[in-house]
C-alpha cells in the first residue's frame, strides 16, 4: 500500500465568496489595511522601480528618450554573456544551497540528531557574514599559489598543482552556496517545525521507513518552503557582487553585477544603461515565479489544523553521528575556517608576515573600537537600520501575504507581485532608484536614516513576503472560519488567531531580513552619508585601501554584535514558545 502525501486539491470557483470569510465585503478595517499596504508598496517599490524603468529609456549623455540602451544590450555578446553567467551562477548556487540546506533542516527540526542547537547557531553565524568577507577569507584558504590548503597539499604530496582553485566558477558557486544555505535552512526548518507529526506517524504505522516517510510525506509538505528557498538562493546568487568581483573577475568571467559596477564607474557614468541592464534579470525571475506557481498550484499544504500535536522527534539511531558530521560541513566551511582566517589576520601587526608570536597584536581592535569614531557610529546605524527595516518588512510582508493568500479582493495577487518585484534588482541599481525617487521635494530623504531604512525594506520585502506566505499556506482556514463563526471580526481574527500562529515563524523571518541588512553593501553605496554610514561600507572602504587587518577586525566586531542580536531574538522566541503559549498554539521551541 502506498502512502502518499495528504494534499487536498481545492479549486475555488472564481467570483463565489467563501461563505464565512468573505461575507462582509465592505469591511472598513480590511479596506484600511489594504489601503495602507497599497500605499506602502507604491512608495517603497513602485516609485523607485518606476524611476529605474524611466531611466533605462534615456540616454546617459544627452538625457533624451531612447531605446538604444536595450538595443546595445541585446546586440552585444560582451553584454549578453554576463547575463548567461549570472544565470548559471544563480541556478547552481540555488541547487547547491537546497541540496545542503534541506537535509540539514530536516535533521535539526525533526530528528534526534545531537548538538542541534550548535548546528543552528553556527549556520546562523554563516548568515551573519557579508559574502564578500567570506570570499576574502576563502581566497586566503584556497588561492592556487598561496592558499594554505594548497600549501599543505603541496607539502604533503609534492604536487606542483593546487588541489583547490578558488578563482573559478566552481569556487564562486561554492562560496555563494555556503552563504545561501542559511536561507534554505531557516525557511525549511521553520516550516518543518510547525509540521504535525500525525501524518508521519500515520506513515510509520503503515510500515513506511524513516527515509521513505521523509521523502513521501515530510518533504512534499514542505514543498512551498523548499521552492521559496530555491528561488531566494537563486536571487542571492544573481545579485551577489563581492563574490564574483573577487573570485571571477581575475579569471575574466563577468556577471551582471560586476558589469553594472563597470557602468557606474565608467567615465562618464553609464547610469541609465545600468538601469536597462537589470531588465533581463527581471524576466528570468518572473519565469521562476511562474514555474513555482505552476508547481505549487492550488494545493493545500496545511499543517496547522487546530489540533494539539506532539513534538516527537524521529529517532535516527546509528545515523545520528554521521548526520551530525554532514550537518557540520556547511558551518565548517562557512564559519569555522573563514573566521579562523579572519581572526588570525586581525591579530597580526602585518598580515603578510603570517601568524608568528612576534606579529601578534590587539591594536587593530583598539583602532576599530576606540580610536575610530566612525566604527561606533556605523555599528549603531547598522543595527538601527536593520532592526527598523526588518520590523517594517515583517509587518508589511505579513499583511500583504494575508491579503494575497486569503484573496481579499480580486487582483490581490498583483500586490504579491509588487511586493516581490524588487527581489531581482541588483542592490546598486535599487540604490540609484531610491536616490532618484527620494532626493527631490516633496519627498527629500537623501542623507537621512529614512532613505536607507526604506531602501533596505524594499530590498528585503520580497523575502519577508515569501516567508510569510509560506507560513500562511501552512495554516488552515478552518481556524479562521471557526473564529468568524463565533462572531469575531476579520481584524480580531487576524490579530487573535492568524498572527499568533505565525508569530514564531515571523520571528525567524525577522532574522531573515535583519541579518542580510547588516551585511548589505550594494544598496548602501550611493545612499550612505558620513553620519549614516554602515558597517558594510566601512569594511569595504578598508578593503579598498588594502588594509586587511582592519577589515578582519571590523568583520569580527560586526559578527559579535550581530550575533548578540540573534541570541536576543532566540531568547524572545523561547519565551513565545513557553508551555503556556504552547497550550494555545502548537509551535515547538525553535
Amino acid at each position, binding site marked *: 500500500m502506498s502512502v502518499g502525501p495528504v494534499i487536498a486539491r481545492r479549486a475555488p470557483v472564481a467570483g463565489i465568496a467563501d461563505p464565512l470569510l468573505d461575507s462582509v465585503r465592505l469591511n472598513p478595517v480590511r479596506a484600511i489595511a489594504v489601503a495602507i499596504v497599497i500605499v506602502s508598496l507604491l512608495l517603497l517599490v513602485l516609485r523607485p522601480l518606476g524611476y529605474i524603468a524611466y531611466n533605462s529609456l534615456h540616454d546617459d549623455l544627452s538625457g533624451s528618450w531612447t531605446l538604444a540602451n536595450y538595443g546595445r544590450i541585446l546586440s552585444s555578446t560582451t553584454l549578453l554573456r554576463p547575463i548567461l553567467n549570472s544565470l548559471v551562477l544563480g541556478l547552481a548556487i540555488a541547487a547547491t544551497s537546497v541540496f545542503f540546506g534541506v537535509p540539514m533542516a530536516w535533521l535539526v527540526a525533526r530528528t534526534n540528531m545531537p548538538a542541534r542547537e550548535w548546528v543552528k547557531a553556527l549556520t546562523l553565524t554563516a548568515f551573519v557574514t557579508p559574502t564578500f568577507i567570506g570570499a576574502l577569507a576563502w581566497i586566503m584558504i584556497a*588561492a592556487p599559489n598561496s592558499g594554505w590548503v594548497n600549501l599543505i597539499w603541496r607539502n604533503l604530496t609534492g604536487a606542483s598543482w593546487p588541489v583547490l582553485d578558488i578563482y573559478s566558477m566552481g569556487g564562486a558557486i561554492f562560496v555563494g552556496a555556503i552563504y545561501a544555505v542559511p536561507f534554505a535552512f531557516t525557511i525549511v526548518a521553520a516550516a518543518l517545525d510547525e509540521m504535525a507529526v500525525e501524518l508521519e506517524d500515520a506513515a510509520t504505522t503503515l510500515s513506511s521507513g524513516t527515509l521513505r516517510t521523509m521523502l513521501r510525506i515530510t518533504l512534499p509538505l514542505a514543498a512551498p518552503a523548499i521552492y521559496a528557498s530555491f528561488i531566494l538562493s537563486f536571487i542571492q546568487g544573481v545579485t551577489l557582487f563581492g563574490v564574483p568581483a573577487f573570485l571571477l573577475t*581575475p579569471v575574466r568571467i563577468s556577471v551582471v553585477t560586476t558589469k553594472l559596477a563597470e557602468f557606474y564607474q565608467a567615465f562618464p557614468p553609464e547610469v541609465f544603461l545600468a538601469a536597462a541592464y537589470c531588465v533581463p534579470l527581471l524576466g528570468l525571475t518572473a519565469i521562476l515565479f511562474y514555474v513555482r506557481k505552476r508547481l505549487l498550484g492550488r494545493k493545500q499544504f496545511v499543517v496547522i489544523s487546530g489540533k494539539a500535536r506532539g513534538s516527537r522527534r524521529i529517532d535516527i539511531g546509528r545515523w545520528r553521528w554521521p548526520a551530525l558530521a554532514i550537518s557540520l560541513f556547511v558551518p565548517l566551511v562557512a564559519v569555522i575556517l573563514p573566521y579562523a582566517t579572519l581572526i588570525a589576520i586581525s591579530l597580526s*601587526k602585518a598580515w603578510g608576515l603570517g601568524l608568528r608570536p612576534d606579529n601578534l597584536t590587539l591594536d587593530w581592535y583598539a583602532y576599530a573600537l576606540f580610536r575610530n569614531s566612525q566604527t561606533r557610529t556605523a555599528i549603531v546605524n547598522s543595527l538601527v537600520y536593520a532592526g527598523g527595516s526588518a520590523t517594517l518588512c515583517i509587518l508589511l510582508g505579513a499583511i500583504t501575504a494575508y491579503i494575497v493568500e486569503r484573496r481579499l479582493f480580486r487582483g490581490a495577487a498583483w500586490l504579491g507581485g509588487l511586493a516581490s518585484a524588487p527581489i531581482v534588482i541588483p542592490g546598486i541599481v535599487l540604490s540609484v532608484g531610491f536616490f*532618484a525617487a527620494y532626493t527631490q521635494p516633496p519627498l527629500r530623504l*537623501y542623507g537621512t536614516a529614512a532613505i536607507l531604512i526604506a531602501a533596505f525594506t524594499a530590498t528585503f520585502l520580497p523575502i519577508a513576503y515569501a516567508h510569510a506566505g509560506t507560513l500562511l499556506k501552512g495554516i488552515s482556514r478552518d481556524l479562521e472560519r471557526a473564529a468568524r463563526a463565533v462572531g469575531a471580526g476579520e481584524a480580531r481574527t487576524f490579530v487573535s488567531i492568524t498572527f499568533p500562529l505565525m508569530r514564531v515563524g515571523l520571528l525567524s523571518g525577522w532574522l531573515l531580513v535583519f541579518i542580510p541588512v547588516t551585511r548589505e553593501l550594494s544598496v548602501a553605496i550611493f545612499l*550612505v552619508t558620513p*553620519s549614516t554610514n554602515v558597517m558594510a561600507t566601512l569594511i569595504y572602504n578598508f578593503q579598498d585601501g588594502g*588594509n586587511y587587518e582592519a577589515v578582519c577586525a571590523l568583520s569580527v566586531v560586526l559578527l559579535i554584535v550581530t550575533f548578540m542580536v540573534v541570541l536576543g531574538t532566540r531568547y524572545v522566541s523561547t519565551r513565545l514558545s513557553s508551555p503556556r503559549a504552547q497550550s494555545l498554539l502548537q509551535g515547538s521551541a525553535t
Partner: protein
Amino acid sequence: MLWSEAKDTDMVKITRRSVLQGTAAASLSTGAGMFSRPVAAQEDELYQAAKKEGRLTRYDGIFEQKTIEAIIEAFKAKYSGIDVQLLRQPSQTLYTRLRLEIQNGVAECDTLGTTNILHFVELKKINELAAYVPKDLDKAPAAFRDIDPDHTFHTAALSVTCINYSPQKAPKPPTSWTELVEGTWAGKISVGSPAVSGDVASWVVAMRHKYGDKFLKDLAAQKPKIGGSSVDTVTDILAGERSVGAGAPFSYSLAQKAAGQPIDVSMPTDDAILNLGVTAVLAKAPHPNASRLFANFLQSVECSQILAKAFWPTLRSDVPWAEGRTLETVKWYRNPVDGLAAEVAEGVAKWKEILG
C-alpha cells in the same frame, strides 16, 4: 599679511578677493612641528567664518582610510570647532554619486578629492567648482602648481605608479616596464584594471604612449592576475599569490614595507607614472569658508608632513619626502591632459580586447 598681498598681484584677478579673505597670519607656520598649534591670535577671518559654519563634508577617493583620517584629525586639531564629515569611497563611485546629487539638486558635498583629473574638467565645464587659491600654493612643486589656470581645482596628491615585488620570491625584480613584460615573469605578475582604477588607467595610457599596443600584448602573454584597484597588487604580493606587481602604488607599498610587510618597490628606469590626486571646493558648497580653510590645510606644512609619514610625496618644496627621495631624483612621466578622456576610453577598450 603684506607678503601675501604682494604675491597676490601676480595671481589671477578673479581670486584676489578669496586670497585676501583667506590668508592666515600664519605665514609664520613655515617649518612648524607636527603637533597641534593653537591658531595665532591675529588668525584669519577665514577661520572665524569657518568656525561659524561649524563643519564641512569631504568626499575623498585619493587616500586610503588611515591617511585621510590622519589629515582630518590634524585639521581638527589645528582649527578647533570645525567638524569634518568624511565620505571615503573609490574615486569613480564618488564622482557618480556627485553627478547624481547635482542632477537632483542636492548640495551635500563641500570639497571633493579624486584621482581622476577628468572629473574636475567636467565639473568645471558645468560650473560646479569654485575658484580659490589656497595659501602657500607657491610652495607647491612648480610642475603641479597651476594645473588649472582658473584655479578651480588643485593638486592634492602625487600618486606614483611603479613596480612592486616580494623580496623573498623575486630577489631580482624587473627594473623597467619592458623588462617586466618581456622577461621571465609568466604567471607571476599581478595588476589592477584601468576600468576600475584611475591610477591604473593613467598607467595604461602612459604605456601605450611609450610602447603602443605591443606592451599590452606582451603583458597578456605573461598571464597576469587582474584585479581592480592598484592596491590589489600589494594584496597579492603579501598573500604570496603573485611575486611582482605592475602599475603598483608606490606610496602604499612603501607604507606596508615600513610596517614590516614583506614587500618592496622597484622604480622603473623607463619612468614611474605620475597621476595627480586633485581637489576642489564645490561652487554650491554649504560650508564655503570651512571648505576653503580645508583647501589651505591640504597645502600646509602639517599636511605635507603627514603625507611624508605615509610615504606619499609632499606638496611642498620645503617638506621632504620620506627616505630622501625627491621629485627630481625619481624618474617620472605624466600624461598630458589634452585628449586624455579619449585616450583613457581607448586604453580601457584595448585592455579589454587584449587582456579580456
